[in-house]
Structure formats: C-alpha cells, structure tokens
C-alpha cells in the first residue's frame, strides 16, 4: 500500500459527494435557470477525481495542481449555476461547496509542506497559500448569500460589492482623498514626528523620561478615541479635527517605542563610542538611532492602523459632505449596504497598502536586523 496516501479531507470530500446524491437536484424545482444534469455530473466527477488522485502517491506538485484545479473548477461551476436562481439552492448545493472547500484545504496542506529550491518559487508559495484561503472565504460568502437568498440589506455578496466599487469609483476617490490622503496622512506625520521629537528630548533629560514614560504607558491603554467629539468641537467639521484625533492617537505609541528603542543599544557599543570620544549627538545618530530603528518601525506600523481608525471614527461625530466615515454612516442609514461594504473594502485595501509601504521601508532601513535577515518578518 505504499502508493496509497491517505488524507482525511479527501476521504470526507468523497463522503460528502455520496451524501449529496440523495439530496439532488442542486436547485429547487421552480428555479428559473436549472443546472443541467450534465453540469451536475461534471461537478461530481471533478471532486471525486481530484480527491481520488490526491490519494495516489504523486509528486507534490502534481497532487497540488490536481487538487487546485478540481476544487476551483467545481467551485466555479457551482457559483455559476446559482446566477439567476438566487435563494433556490438546496442542501446538496451546500454539501458540494463544502466538499470542494475540503479539497482546497487539502491543497493548502500539500502546498505548505512543499519547499521550493528557488527564491521565486518560495515567494509564489508564500503568496499562493493565503490567496487560496482568502478566495475560499469569498466563495463561501458568495455561495451562502446568493444560494440561500440572504437579503441585500443584511449582507451583500462579494460580487455585488465588487460591482458597486467599479460603479462608484469617483465617489470612493473623493472619500479616500478627504479621509486618507488628507486627515490620516497629515495627522500621522505630525503625530509620529512630534512623538519622536519628544522622545529625543526625554532621552536627553532623564527627569523628563522618568516622568513621561509611566504616563505614556498609562495613556496608551486609555480609550483615546473618546477625544473625537472634543476635537470636532475645537477644530470644526473638516479634516483638521480628524487629523487632530490622529495626532493624539499616534503620539504616545511613538513616544513609548522610541524611548524604549533608544535604550536598546548595547553597553559594549556605547563604551566603544565613548572611547572614540564621540559627542552625545554623534552617539545618537551613529549608534542609538539605528539600533532603535526596529522599535520606531514597530510604532510606525501600529500607528498606520491607529491613524485609519481614528480618522474614520472621528467622522461619526460630524463631517463635511465627504469622507469614508461619513459615507459609511449615511449609506448605512439608507440601507445601501453594498456601498457600505464597498467603503469597507476600500478602507481595508488602503490600510493594507499603508501598512505594506511602512513594512517595505522597514525592510530597506533595518536590513541588518535578525528578523529580516532570517527572512521571517
């Protein structure tokens, strides 16, 4: 039996196919565009064949490729079958989706045990594995919302959200400009810069450090987001008040992290600098700031998400006629949930891009750090 390779996901997928047979057809009898029995047969064949092939002792590449093709072709056929028949899916439909998802899981397991010899291959693997996971979240979301006919007011399917994004790019762009390119960016820059400057001051004067650090640690646990209504009262409805909230939220993480980072340089290195008779500023710029860079980037990364949150939440306390928080709250009131989700998707993408840019700069600046040299980051 050495050519046989057991996997519980494959086993379960075949079992699900057997379970689905008595529960046929896929769609209710009164469906407008019924799925032909030929297509149904193809879906069964795809799942069973992919599962069966994964039991053979094939090479990992081949096994992953079969599983990938089987799971996604079956998933695509199932999703395509639902169009025009929203809310008509029967139990067998969901059982088959589950079977295809199990195959995708098996595929991910095979892929994650693979080790490529080339860097490009490893890089592809690192992207492919989470991508499959994400795609299946969308497939299941789509299948459940459209298959079971969930109302658009409760949870729109990903395809409707995608269509909404494509149709309202100008509005989305105005909101992104108002919230992210103005409030978030300006607030982030001012907040991080002032936190950094105060940290340098605190480092120069020990008394200030001993006094500020406990307070900074304390403040970072407080719900600072609550200052939003006050800032709106002080700075008016436009972006200035949002930027002010962002400044306050990003200041303390930067302060605490930079002060900790400045203490990170080893005693040996500091002594070496002293033997060179270097001044405070030379030691600061040539030794301690580079050593503090990982901590500073940690704060920059934390702040990139905090800044997004601060700006959008502050818009709930009053805004001009644009901005992501404004759009989310008004469209929500009109039950245009697809627009709300479109804003959420845009916010998520913008947040990831923001975080990604900071991470890339970190990689370039702190290339010497073990966590990056080891390639784990």
């Amino acid at each position, binding site marked *: 039996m050495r050519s046989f390779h057991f996997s519980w996901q494959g086993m379960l997928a075949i079992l699900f196919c057997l379970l689905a047979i008595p529960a046929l057809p896929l769609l209710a009898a009164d469906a407008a565009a019924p799925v032909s029995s030929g297509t149904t047969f193809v879906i069964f064949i795809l799942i069973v064949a992919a599962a069966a092939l994964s039991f053979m002792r094939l090479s990992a590449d081949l096994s992953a490729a079969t599983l990938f093709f089987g799971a996604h072709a079956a998933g695509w056929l199932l999703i395509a079958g639902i169009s025009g028949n929203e809310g008509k899916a029967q139990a067998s439909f969901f059982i088959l989706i589950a079977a295809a998802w199990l195959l995708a899981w098996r595929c991910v397991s095979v892929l994650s*045990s693979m080790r490529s010899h080339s860097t490009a291959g490893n890089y592809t693997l690192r992207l492919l*594995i989470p991508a499959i996971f994400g795609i299946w979240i969308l497939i299941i979301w789509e299948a459940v919302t459209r298959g079971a006919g969930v109302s658009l007011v409760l949870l729109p399917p990903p395809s409707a959200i995608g269509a909404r994004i494509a149709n309202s790019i100008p509005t989305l762009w105005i909101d992104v400009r108002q919230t992210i390119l103005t409030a978030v960016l300006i607030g982030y820059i001012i907040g991080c810069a002032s936190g950094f400057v105060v940290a340098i001051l605190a480092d120069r004067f020990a008394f200030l450090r001993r006094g500020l650090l406990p307070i900074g640690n304390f403040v970072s646990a407080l719900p600072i987001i609550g200052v939003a209504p*006050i800032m709106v009262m002080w700075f008016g409805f436009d972006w200035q008040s949002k930027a002010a909230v962002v400044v306050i939220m990003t200041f303390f993480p930067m302060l605490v992290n930079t002060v900790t980072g400045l203490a990170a340089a080893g005693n040996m290195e500091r002594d070496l600098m002293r033997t060179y008779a270097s001044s405070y500023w030379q030691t600061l710029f040539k030794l301690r700031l580079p050593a503090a860079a990982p901590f500073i980037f940690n704060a920059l990364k934390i702040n990139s998400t905090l800044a*997004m949150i601060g700006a959008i939440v502050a818009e709930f306390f009053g805004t001009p006629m644009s901005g992501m928080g404004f759009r989310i709250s008004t469209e929500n009131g009109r039950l245009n949930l697809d627009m709300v989700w479109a804003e959420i998707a845009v916010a998520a993408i913008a947040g990831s891009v923001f975080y990604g840019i900071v991470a890339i700069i970190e990689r370039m600046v702190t290339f010497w750090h073990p966590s990056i040299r080891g390639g784990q980051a």
Partner: protein
Amino acid sequence: MEKEQFFKHKFLPVTTIVLAIILLWYVFAAALNAPFQRDLDRRGNVTPTALEFIGKTLSQPKPTLPAPHQVAQNVFENTFLRVPTSNRSLVYNAWITLAPTAVGFAFGTILGVLFAVGIVHLVALDRSLMPWIIASQTIPILAIAPTIIVVFSALGIDGLIPKALISTYLSFFPVTVGMTKGLRSPEIMHLDLMRTYNASSWQTFWKLRVPASVPFLFTSMKVAIAASLVGTIVGELPTGAVAGIGAKLLAGSYYSQTIDIWAALVAGSVLAAVLVGIVSIAARIVDRSMGGRTA
C-alpha cells in the same frame, strides 16, 4: 535606600509632570475660553479685572475646554452623589460598558489562544491563516463597528452580544500574536530535552509550551482588555443616547455639554486603568504561584 530611590526616580518626576500637565491645562482652559467670555462681557457691558476675568473663564457652564476642577466636580457628583441605578450616574454607565467588554475580552482571549494553538501545531494554518489575521487588523473594524451594530439590530439582536462581538474582534488579535510567540518561545534545547524524555507532543505542549507562554499571554491580555474597552465604547455610538460611556460621549457632543464629555472620558480612563490593573494583578499572582521570582 530602596524607598529613597523610588521617591527620587519615580514619585518625584511623575508628580512633577502630572502637576505641569494640570497647570498647562488651566492655562489652556483660560486661553481657549477667553474669546467667548470677552464676548459675553462686551455684551453685558462689564469690565472685570484680570483676575475676575480668569475666574470667569474657568467657570463657564459650556466651556470650550473645561477646567480640571469643573471636570473633577462633575465626575464626583455623577459618581458619588447619584443613585448608582440612575441614568445619569457614571457608575451605571460604566457598568453598562463593562459587561460587553468583559464578555468580549473573554471570548477574544479564548479565540486568540485557540488560533495560536492551531497555528503552532498545523503548518497549513500557520501559512494560510496567519497572513489574514494580520491583514484583518488593517481593516478599520472600529470604523465600521456602528454599522455592524445597526445590522445586528435590524436582525433583532440587540444589547450585549453585538458589542461583545466587536470587542472580541479587537481583542483576539493581540492574544493570537502574543500566544503564538509564547508557544514558540521554548528553546530548541528544551524541546530536545523533552524528546530525550520520550515525551509525547501532548506532554510537551502542557509541560513545556504552555508554562513558557504564560508571561506572553498576560502581556497580550493587557493590550487586549484595553482594546476591547475601546471596541465597546465605539460600538455604543449608534445606539444614540441610551446608556454606556460611548453613548455619554455622543450625547455630550450633540448637546455641547463639554463638561459631560470630559467626565465620560475620565470615567472611561478610570475603567481602563482598573481593568488593566486587574489583569496585572492576576499576572503577578499566576507568576508567583508558578514559582516566578519577584523582579
């Protein structure tokens, strides 16, 4: 000796800075409230002396920036002088906020630990789930928290559960990250030692990995409980002026009751400090009972 160090290196600097902040606060309060007061005086045809004028700026009923003593007075009145069941009592509002925070934190911690265990033991989960867990935090969930609450209430689910879910979402992340790090913190030497004892992976998990992860767990729990409080407060925003610290903030912002906003902020901060304090005490007790030395 040690007491003197504490006084000189901790108490003195912190007190100085706190006093400086309060002093600055007074200066700002006087400066920010001055334009409105000047306007009032001009209309009322009064010409107060400088001292009287400053006194007036610090006792406006709806100041731009309330003076510290005004906030303190409001907090004191609404905490100690009101029946704890009254709608205006800060104790009542803090209690309303506390319940979802606690439930959300508990779920978040459990979920975070489960994710971490899965991630440490299953390579597939590590490589497929971990990137999405990190990406999930770039979604400003806090920004859409009010939407989630409204959708839930459209479904007929109200009250504690939706707010607790948002708290859960915010608090699971630090726990997952910290716990994953903690479960992976035993050195290879120790893992090898377990192997020489012929320990099963179950035994290695309970006798080596779990004890090693405890300090990491408590550190992340401190972050998580603060995050879940923020989640609850933001989750309270769309319920209008019903109850809870978030609702107090929103009501204060609607009616320009600045002193009320600041009092609600103070209440939220005290709540956060108490919650983090409780976790720290729990951490110390567990640490001691596990034989940790006092640092």
